[in-house]
């Protein structure tokens, strides 16, 4: 039986922007994610996906509402939340002058992975992500694909039950992207809870068990693909998305 | 040469520079404000220190002052705030204990200095051996010691006059002759001397400073921002793009130098002038800070020369960098190299000989020094122009060679200028 791992209620974030004044980047977002599922946030650029995920990862403070990860509140227990969380995005870079092995060790230690098993865990990760050949090379020397593998290994090295992937495939070529998607699915199959954001329909369609369509900071719909299809009588996610975002249907 | 393209690019570089904070600060703000500010701080600090030292009340104890030297007390009063306690001469038996007591009080900061007169059999009536006790670890005590020393020395010379009088030596016979100094230099000339010592040094540093950011920003910075490729695709030859950038760097250096010279003259007038007047020991030669008109063309000319030279050299070095940070570390040694001779040249006795005029940068400092003092040495000026021009041409030649290499131009070359020279120029040099 899957349990609720992430619980978001009425989560809101207001920014102040010099040009636009007050901006409601995220307004009253509610959803839950269960273990062993990939929950997708689908939205255009600037829809509020990243802001929502950053609030769950405690990098941003919510203006209103709550979010809990394994029952830990993001405002009151940020450290506990982050400990149970792996956050991956295109903008979370790696230290160029560390080797892959050092990077993994660092993040295991900083994320408070038990000291005695850190070493084994790091080797396990190196093995699992196929990094053995270049585990001793500095990251600055690695290719984009290799860097990305190290990045994912970095995200899961402390064995967090919840993983957040914020537009992970941005800037990757097709093969690398597919590789990444496969990795995410494997993690799901191990029972991790995965929050995944994207603006690419096919990606959401293939990966996500449930999809939340987010637009202008609000969730317009949240269901499995079949549920969405049934609710909108559209087949393609693209059409479903347009349906919710623009409010009127375009011919399929 | 496609001058229209160069002009357009040059202007766009300049416009961008004026919107870039670091260029503005290093090229304009610092040259303009730094030295006036520094001088103001120095000025206030010196005034503060002198006022404070003057205001120290010296607590002084004088033991056994002979009747012949009562005049010492008046002299002490002239020295400033001083509180004298007089005590009788300690007897031979208690003298040692008395000194120990004084010593303790000096160290406990209850007393600033003490004079102990002990009569000696040598010499005329009233002669005494004087012990001047003070505490070198206290500022107040050192001030008190200075005051006592001056008063004592005056009293001593006064006493010698009195003794001479008693021996019938008076008037011209005792005074022998007076020594008088007659300084023919006017205040303006003195001011020019001081300015000549300082302005050229800061001038060079400021030009280097002014070139530094633009040189890095327009090469390595462009690469970092990925605008280099955009610029490279413009419909003009690469050499024109580089020429425009070079002109811009040289302009920034020149402007920084000129602004700095102006700011220096102003701050000399408003801070150093009053300071010297206040601290002046009354020899009457007030300093006046005016640049001779004939030095202005030299100043401008050298600003242009140095801007062009330092700018070119820096750009060559920075051309190998792919990030701003890298550029900085490649250029900094040159910056230091420019500053070192400037430190060595801080010597007024150095004459500006024609051989010295052949060394770039150094010659500019010496030439300017002479020019500020109102001297135009035409031979040296000529040599200076030639040597700097030659150096500029050399730099530009090197730059054109460097840029002809695809890898450097696109930024894929790994390494710096020296590694490049080792790799590329050796076979060429071998052939020649």
């Amino acid at each position: 039986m899957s349990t609720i791992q992430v619980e978001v209620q009425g989560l809101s974030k207001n920014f102040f922007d010099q040009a636009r004044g007050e901006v409601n980047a995220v307004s009253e977002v509610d959803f839950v994610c269960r273990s062993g599922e990939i929950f997708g946030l689908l939205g255009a650029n600037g829809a509020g996906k990243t802001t929502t995920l950053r609030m769950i990862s405690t990098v941003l403070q919510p203006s209103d509402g709550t979010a809990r990860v394994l029952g830990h509140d993001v405002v009151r227990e940020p450290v506990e939340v982050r400990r149970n969380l792996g956050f991956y995005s295109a903008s979370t870079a790696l230290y160029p002058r560390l080797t892959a092995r050092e990077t993994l060790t660092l993040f295991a230690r900083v994320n408070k992975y038990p000291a005695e098993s850190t070493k084994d865990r790091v080797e396990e990760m190196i093995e699992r992500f196929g990094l053995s050949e270049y585990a001793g090379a500095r990251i600055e020397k690695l290719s984009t694909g290799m860097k990305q593998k190290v990045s994912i290994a970095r995200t899961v090295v402390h064995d967090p039950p919840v993983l957040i992937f914020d537009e992970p495939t941005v800037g990757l070529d097709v093969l690398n992207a597919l590789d990444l998607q496969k990795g995410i699915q494997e993690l799901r199959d191990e029972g991790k809870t995965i929050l995944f954001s994207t603006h690419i329909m096919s990606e959401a369609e293939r990966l996500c068990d449930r999809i939340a369509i987010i637009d202008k900071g609000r969730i317009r719909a949240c269901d499995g693909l079949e549920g969405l299809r049934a609710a909108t009588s559209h087949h393609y996610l693209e059409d479903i998305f347009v349906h919710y975002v623009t409010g009127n249907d375009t011919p399929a | 040469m496609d001058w229209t393209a160069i002009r357009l690019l040059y202007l766009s570089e300049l416009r961008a520079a004026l919107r870039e904070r670091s260029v503005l600060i290093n090229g304009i703000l610092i040259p303009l404000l730094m030295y006036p500010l520094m001088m103001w701080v120095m000025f206030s600090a010196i005034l503060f220190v002198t006022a404070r030292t003057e205001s120290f009340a010296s607590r002084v104890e004088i033991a056994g002052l002979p009747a012949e030297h009562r005049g010492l007390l008046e002299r002490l009063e002239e020295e400033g705030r001083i509180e004298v306690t007089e005590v009788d001469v300690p007897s031979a038996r208690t003298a040692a204990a008395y000194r120990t007591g004084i010593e303790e009080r000096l160290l406990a900061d209850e007393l600033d200095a003490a004079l102990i007169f002990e009569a000696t059999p040598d010499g005329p009536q009233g002669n005494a051996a004087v012990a001047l006790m003070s505490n070198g670890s206290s500022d107040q005590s050192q001030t008190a010691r200075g005051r006592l020393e001056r008063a004592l020395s005056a009293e001593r010379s006064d006493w010698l006059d009195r003794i001479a009088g008693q021996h019938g030596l008076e008037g011209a016979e005792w005074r022998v002759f007076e020594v008088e100094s007659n300084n023919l230099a006017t205040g303006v000339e003195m001011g020019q001397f001081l300015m000549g010592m300082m302005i050229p040094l800061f001038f060079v540093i400021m030009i280097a400073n002014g070139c530094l950011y633009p040189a890095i920003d327009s090469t390595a910075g462009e690469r970092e921002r990925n605008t280099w490729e955009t610029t490279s695709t413009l419909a003009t030859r690469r050499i024109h793009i580089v020429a425009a950038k070079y002109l811009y760097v040289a302009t920034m250096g020149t402007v920084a130098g000129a602004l700095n010279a102006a700011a220096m003259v102003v701050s000399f007038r408003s801070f150093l002038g009053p300071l010297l007047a206040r601290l002046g020991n009354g020899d009457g030669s007030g300093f006046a800070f005016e640049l001779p008109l004939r030095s202005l063309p030299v100043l401008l000319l050298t600003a242009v020369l140095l801007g062009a030279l330092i700018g070119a050299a820096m750009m060559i070095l920075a051309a190998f960098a792919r990030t701003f940070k890298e550029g900085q570390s490649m250029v900094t040694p040159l910056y230091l190299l420019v500053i070192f001779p400037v430190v060595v040249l801080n010597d007024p006795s150095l004459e500006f000989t024609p051989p010295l005029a052949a060394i770039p940068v150094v010659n500019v400092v010496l030439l300017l020094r002479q020019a500020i003092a109102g001297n135009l040495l035409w031979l040296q000026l000529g040599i200076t122009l030639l040597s700097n021009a030659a150096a500029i041409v050399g730099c530009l030649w090197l730059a054109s060679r460097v840029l002809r290499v695809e890898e450097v131009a696109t930024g894929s070359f790994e390494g710096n200028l020296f590694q490049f020279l080792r790799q590329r120029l050796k076979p060429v040099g071998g052939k020649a």
Partner: protein
Amino acid sequence: MNPRTVSALVTNDLRQLARNPRLLVFAVALPLVMWPLMWYLTSLTTERRQERLESRTYLYAVAENPASADGATWLDRALARVGDDGRNGDDGRNGDADPEAGPAVLFERVAPPDDLPAALDDGRLHVHLAWEPVTEDGGAPRAVLTYRADLDASGTAEGYLRRALRSTRVEVREQRLAAAGFEADPADLLPVERIETASEEQTSGLLLGRILTAIIVLMMLTGGSIVATDALAGEKERGTLETLLTTAARRIEIVTAKNLSILSVALITSILNIANIVLWMQLDVIPAPEGLKLVIPVGTGLLLLFLYAPAAVLLSSALLLVSGRSKTYKEAQLLFAPVMLGALAIAAIPVLPGIALRSAIVVVPIANLGVAAREILTGTYDWPLLAAAWTVTAGAAALLARASVRTLSAEKLITASDTDAADLAGGPALFPRRVAGWFAVLWALLLVWQLNSGGGIDGRLLITINLSILGAAAWLMIARYRLPLRETLSLKPPPAAAWLGVLIAAPAGLVLANGVVRLASLAMPIPEEWLEAMADAFGADLPLWQMLFFFAVLPGIFEEIAFRGVLLHGLRARLNPVPLVLIAGIAFGFFHVDLFRIPPTSLLGVFLVIAVLRTGSIYPAMAWHALHNALALSGARIEQIGLTEEPTWWHYALALAAILLAFRLMSRPKVS
């Protein structure tokens, strides 16, 4: 805080640094070469100049009509000794010179030129001597040396010749005195023996103490800034900071780790640099400053190390703050220059003569430790004040560290725009964030002004200027942030009972202030001169009405507007009542700069803040303040401050009760 996390982060930082050869060259190698080389070159230049001046031949000329027959003889004697005196002294007493050895500097006589100024100008002649005849009765002939001070050779030649002539004159006098029958050697008249009571260490300690802090600050900053730029700004630019922020590391752990990295690198580079310079000095390649003895006893060294520790943390936190505030590496670099200059200016304060730790300086972070170090090196150990200085700097370091934790709050980091609600709205909403900065600047201004204006200035003028600075600043803030006047300054009628409260409170407050002074004087005794100086400053010689006007009425109005008006208004929005009362009150105390006045004025400040908060009006506070000052002044005038008859404990208890009663009377009627 988890030491394991911190150590992992520090290791990470240091490992990356060690793998950055370019950074290492700049942070470590370059200064190691630069400093000694600069020093060496400077001393080389000085030496070479000295040599050049001594080895050249100076051209002199003598006017042709010698008015004094002896002139030629005297000149010969002077030329025989020219240069013997080197550059020491003007009195011409120089026992070491060997008359047989000939002159130390070469002087060559040339024919007197027709056009003297031109000859001097183009270097055909360096100095011209003319014997002026006796002009007055009993006068002596004069040797007039004509030269150009702005030409190096001419100025030097004149100096040599002038000193040689002076010592010739002394010699001639002594001979004439002996010939007239004076038996003693004039050198034996009033011989002075200089006795130095301070030990060599203490004397050298004064010298070292003046510059030590500045050197340490400079080294810490140059070494530390290279890591610091990379620490937050660099990580931001590379995107690794966001990675770090999504880990389970606490913000405080990250900041601590960064601070430790900066500190360790700064420490290592400082040690390397100092050892390097000392080494070159030992090898005699670069000259050590005269009178500097570089031996510090182990105990003193450890004490100094302990003393400088908070200063080091303060500096590294400041660097980190700058780095955290900047969005890019370049921006951080640009911001370091002002930090560096500011820190150096503060660290240079021990250079100023006669500044004792037992003064207002104890409240200035870093400077207080510098002055403390100077005192320790000269053998003075003022323990309570050492502790105070240490605490002040440590407190400032903690505040800065907290501020740098706040820069990690990701809003700014990620929205990439510094502006938030208040910045955007500007005006009143922004003011609470800026008020502390404003008052900090104001305080610095007043501090500088007070330090510079000690003594010699009319007390009336002093206080008027102080108050106008405060008034002008208050006005500026109100205008700049468009603050609503009535609310800002609490311009409301108070409850009537409040006036009665003021009448009770003012004398009681004065008694309590006296108690605080006595308490404080247990830790730092008030010097007698200070009390006298105070009496002078408050215009003890003025007519009573003037005194009351300048020192009671004016402060009552202007200080209240600035502190209980603008400052309180600004702080109110961000603080809870208890910290608000304490901070606003103590800030007021600190504006009285003088160390001994801070405790009682802080207490008064606290009372006045309470008065404003309870009545909702500034008027009772103004009245109280004016009345307080008036009572204090007339009390002082009547019996030179009531120190003759000290209040006893029940006076204080009574006063406390009276104050509490007064505060009750001041309570605002409940709004229904």
